[in-house]
């Protein structure tokens, strides 16, 4: 068949297809495109024919363009974010954490292990703090948690707007750290391991030092509540990073690239959960932890409750099959 005959025979069909494409691409009324998959496959056939018959480049190129656009509409990954969010929070995220328990365990040991070990060390050998943290930062810390000052974390009782400032700051700062911990896992997991260890060390040093000099009450009552979410989130971000690294070290029967892509798909979900945790943590830190009107006892109680909540959530949520629905 000559090209001109081929073109004139199918022209009307191609024009209809182009119109359906326009509608789909602009997200307009998609009820009129029910025949789209069929039309798309016919177009694919026309392209194959045109190539096989040696038709001109212009025809083949323009058919190829149409097929590409059709391909992008037909095979696009549609995600229903709103509907998925609920089932993600209620079931998928804790399930994923349990499924990846090896990495979570490793990250948890690195982070909380270094936190506790360094905390105990600094508590036992107080001068160690100055080799871990610069002296002027230590001084700044003293000012923040000094129990004589009679307030927590800030020099004066904060207005509501200041809580808001701190909320913004915590979101920015903590999620930044979590992202960094995750992303550096691409270096065979070494980066994540380093950031887990390093952050654990710094937090442990601060905790040990402040407990040692008798600021323990103000410090612990301040951090216990939001720490439940914040510290867990950092550990989980590290776990996601370690998973990336492990895919490169031991890809199994896949190529390293393929293994990395699969691990990345899983771990990006973990990171989404981490972001959620950190938002909650920032909220608690700004609006609850800094309250001075609450007695330390209440704070400890609420804090312990939140830790238990996180533990129960990660261990038990989504175990029953129909939980999300």
């Amino acid at each position, binding site marked *: 068949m000559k090209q001109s005959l081929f073109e004139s025979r199918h022209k009307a069909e191609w024009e209809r297809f182009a119109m359906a494409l326009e509608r789909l691409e602009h997200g307009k009324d998609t009820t009129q495109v029910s025949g789209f998959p069929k039309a798309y496959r016919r177009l694919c056939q026309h392209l194959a024919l045109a190539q096989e018959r040696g038709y001109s480049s212009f025809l083949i190129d323009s058919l*190829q363009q149409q*097929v590409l656009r059709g391909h992008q509409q037909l095979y696009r990954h549609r995600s229903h974010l709103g509907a998925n969010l609920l089932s993600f929070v209620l079931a998928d995220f804790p399930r994923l954490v349990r499924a990846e328990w090896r990495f979570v365990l490793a990250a948890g040991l690195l982070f909380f292990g270094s936190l506790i070990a360094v905390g105990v060390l600094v508590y036992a050998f107080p001068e160690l703090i100055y080799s871990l943290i610069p002296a002027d930062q230590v001084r700044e810390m003293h000012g923040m948690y000094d129990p004589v000052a009679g307030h927590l974390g800030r020099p004066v009782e904060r207005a509501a707007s200041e809580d808001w400032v701190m909320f913004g700051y915590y979101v920015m700062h903590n999620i930044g750290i979590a992202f960094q911990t995750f992303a550096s896992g691409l270096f065979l997991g070494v980066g994540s391991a380093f950031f887990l260890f390093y952050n654990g060390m710094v937090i442990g040093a601060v905790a040990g030092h402040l407990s040692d000099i008798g600021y323990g009450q103000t410090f612990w009552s301040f951090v216990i509540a939001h720490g439940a979410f914040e510290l867990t989130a950092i550990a989980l971000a590290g776990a996601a990073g370690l998973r990336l690294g492990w895919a490169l070290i031991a890809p199994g029967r896949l190529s390293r690239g393929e293994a990395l892509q699969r691990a990345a798909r899983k771990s990006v979900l973990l990171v989404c959960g981490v972001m959620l945790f950190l938002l909650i943590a920032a909220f608690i830190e700004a609006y609850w932890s800094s309250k001075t009107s609450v007695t330390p006892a209440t704070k400890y109680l609420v804090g312990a409750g939140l830790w238990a909540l996180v533990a129960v959530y990660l261990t038990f949520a989504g175990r029953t099959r129909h939980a999300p629905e």
Partner: protein
Amino acid sequence: MLEPTAPPRKAPLAPPLDTRHQVETPEGIDLPLRPAGLPVRAVAFAIDLALRGVIMGVLFIALAFLGKLGMGLGSLLLFAISWWYMVLFEVLRQGRSPGKQWMGLRVVHDDGTPVGWSASLLRNLLRFVDLLPFGYFLGTLSCLHHSTFKRLGDIAAGTLVVYSERPLTRPQLPEAEPRRTPVPLTLKEQRAVLSFAERQNDLSPARVNELAALLAQPLRISAPKAVAELNGIARGLLGPT
């Protein structure tokens, strides 16, 4: 010399000479994507960076009037813009951030479909690694080394930065008397002759003559009238219009 017969029908496609990346669809069609190289991506990134700078500058000046509330909002915005600017634009605007759109680029999955939330988030989170140790050093290395110019984030997320397809305009074939080919042509040769006719208006007359003269002897057409004869063959291949 020209190939005497058509290649077998199942012969694998010869790898293209240029950087085209073939994606095979479930329908058995090979779709060529054109991955974008380092310089054009760097320019697109610079545009995005400048745009972000301008947005943040304007917002901070506006927020400065709001005092403390403005400071809180400001740091939230800083967070949102530095981590979510690319993701939001890429997912909601079919893979195009403003800089990419300006340079005619877009982000797609490896299989040619528009980039989704998880892939886009991933490739932009891993930007942190590409930035190391300074100024996109690792990203640049990876981009230069990879056959489809992926930086590390692209490799992990399975995404590709490609040139957006441009609308084509129908080329005008030169007027000539349709005629039969003097020798049987393979499919490739047919396409070559048709391309010669379609692209003629973009070439200088000297080049047109030169190209046609190359074909005069193997096609057994008279050298002085080679251009007209080739156009005639092209018309003949195309059929009556």
